C-alpha cells in the first residue's frame, strides 16, 4: 500500500514540477491563458481537467496494455484516447444534467474546452511513456491537472499587471502572456535542472 502511494506521489510531483504540462510541454497553453483571466475559470477548468486526466489515465492504462503491444498499435492510440475522453465527457455531462442541473447550465459552454484540449490527451500519451502500472498512470494524470492549476494560478496573478498601460500596446494580452510563460518555463528548467530533449 505504501509503495503504491509513494508511486502516485512521485509521479504527481514529476508531472507538476519537472514536466509541467504548460511550462515544459506547452500542452493547452492557449486554454491556460484563456482560463487564467478569471479566478472562477481557474478553479472550474482545473477541476474539469484534473478529473478528466485522472479518470482517463486510469482507463487508458488497460487499453495501453491491450493495444500497444500490437503491431502498429500506436497508430490507433489517438482514436482510442479520443474514445475514452468522449465517453467520460458525455457520462460527466449526463451526471451533471441529471443530478446538478444548475451546475450543468453553468459549465456546459466551457466543458468541451476543458475536456478536448492538449493537456488531457497529452497526459494520456505521456502516460504510455512514463507509466508502468495503474498507480503511476493515476499519479501522472492527477499531477498533470495540478500542474495545469499551478500554471493557471501563476498566469492569473500576473494577468492584471501584464494587461496594464505600462506594457506596450502591441504586446498586451496574448503576446506578453507567451513571453511571461517563457520566462517562468526558463525558471522551472533551472529549478529542476532538467531540460526536455525534443
Amino acid at each position: 500500500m505504501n509503495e503504491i502511494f509513494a508511486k502516485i506521489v512521485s509521479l504527481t510531483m514529476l508531472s507538476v514540477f519537472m514536466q509541467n504540462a504548460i511550462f515544459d510541454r506547452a500542452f493547452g497553453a492557449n486554454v491556460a491563458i484563456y482560463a487564467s483571466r478569471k479566478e472562477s475559470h481557474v478553479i472550474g477548468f482545473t477541476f474539469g481537467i484534473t478529473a478528466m486526466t485522472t479518470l482517463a489515465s486510469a482507463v487508458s492504462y488497460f487499453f495501453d496494455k491491450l493495444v500497444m503491444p500490437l503491431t502498429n498499435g500506436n497508430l490507433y492510440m489517438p482514436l482510442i484516447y479520443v474514445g475514452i475522453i468522449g465517453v467520460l465527457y458525455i457520462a460527466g455531462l449526463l451526471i451533471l444534467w441529471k443530478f446538478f442541473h444548475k451546475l450543468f447550465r453553468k459549465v456546459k459552454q466551457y466543458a468541451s474546452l476543458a475536456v478536448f484540449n492538449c493537456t488531457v490527451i497529452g497526459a494520456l500519451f505521456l502516460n504510455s511513456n512514463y507509466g508502468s502500472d495503474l498507480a503511476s498512470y493515476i499519479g501522472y494524470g492527477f499531477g498533470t491537472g495540478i500542474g495545469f492549476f499551478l500554471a493557471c494560478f501563476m498566469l492569473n496573478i500576473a494577468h492584471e499587471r501584464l494587461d496594464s498601460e505600462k506594457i506596450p500596446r502591441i504586446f498586451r494580452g496574448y503576446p506578453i502572456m507567451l513571453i511571461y510563460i517563457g520566462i517562468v518555463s526558463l525558471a522551472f528548467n533551472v529549478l529542476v535542472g532538467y531540460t526536455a530533449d525534443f
Partner: protein
Amino acid sequence: MKKSKFSVSADGLLRQNIVLMSGLVTAPVIVAATSVERAAVLVVSFFLISYTSILLCRFIPRKIVYTVRILLYAVVAAVMYIPTALCIAKLFPNVSSGVMLYVELLVVNSFLLAKTETRFYLKPYGEMVLDAFIYVIGYAVVAFLVGVLREVLAYGTVCGFHLCEPVVPAAKSPFFGFILVGIMAAVCRGISGKRAPRKERGV
C-alpha cells in the same frame, strides 16, 4: 437572376493567424518546431489531419447537438491520424518521437474544434475550402519561420547545411519557443494594426 457571391479573405495569413493572433494551435510550433525538417513534419501533418478533417466534418449534420458533434470531429481527426502517421514515416524516416507527440495532439486542436463552428461551417463549401487553406498557409509560414530561426540559432544550420557556429544553443528549448512566438505575435499585431477580438484569443 441572383448572383452568387464568392468572397475569400486573407484573414488566416496575418490578421487571424492561428499561431500568432488567435493562439489556437501554438504548442507544436512553440515546442517542436526547432528545425526546418521538424517544421515540415508539423505542416504536412497539420494539413493532412486538420484540413482534411475540416473538409470531411462539414458533412456531419448540424442537427446533432454540439456536445456530440465536437466528439465526432475529434474522432474523424483521430482516424485521419492513421494515414498521416504512415505518410510521415515514409516522408521523414528520421523524425523523432518528440515531434510525433505533437502530431498526435493535432486530433484535438482548437482550429478544428472551435474555428469550424465560428467561421468555416458558416460559409458555402467552396468558400470554406479556400478559406481554411489560407489558414493552413498562415500556420505553415509561421512554423517554417520559427523552424528556420531556431535551427540557425541552436545548431548553426539551415535544412541541415552548416551556416555558422551555434549562437544560442538554448533556442531549441520550449522557453525560447514561448518567447520567440510571443515576440512574433507582437510584431504581427503591430503589422496588422489592431488587436485580435477578445473572444478570438485563447479559445
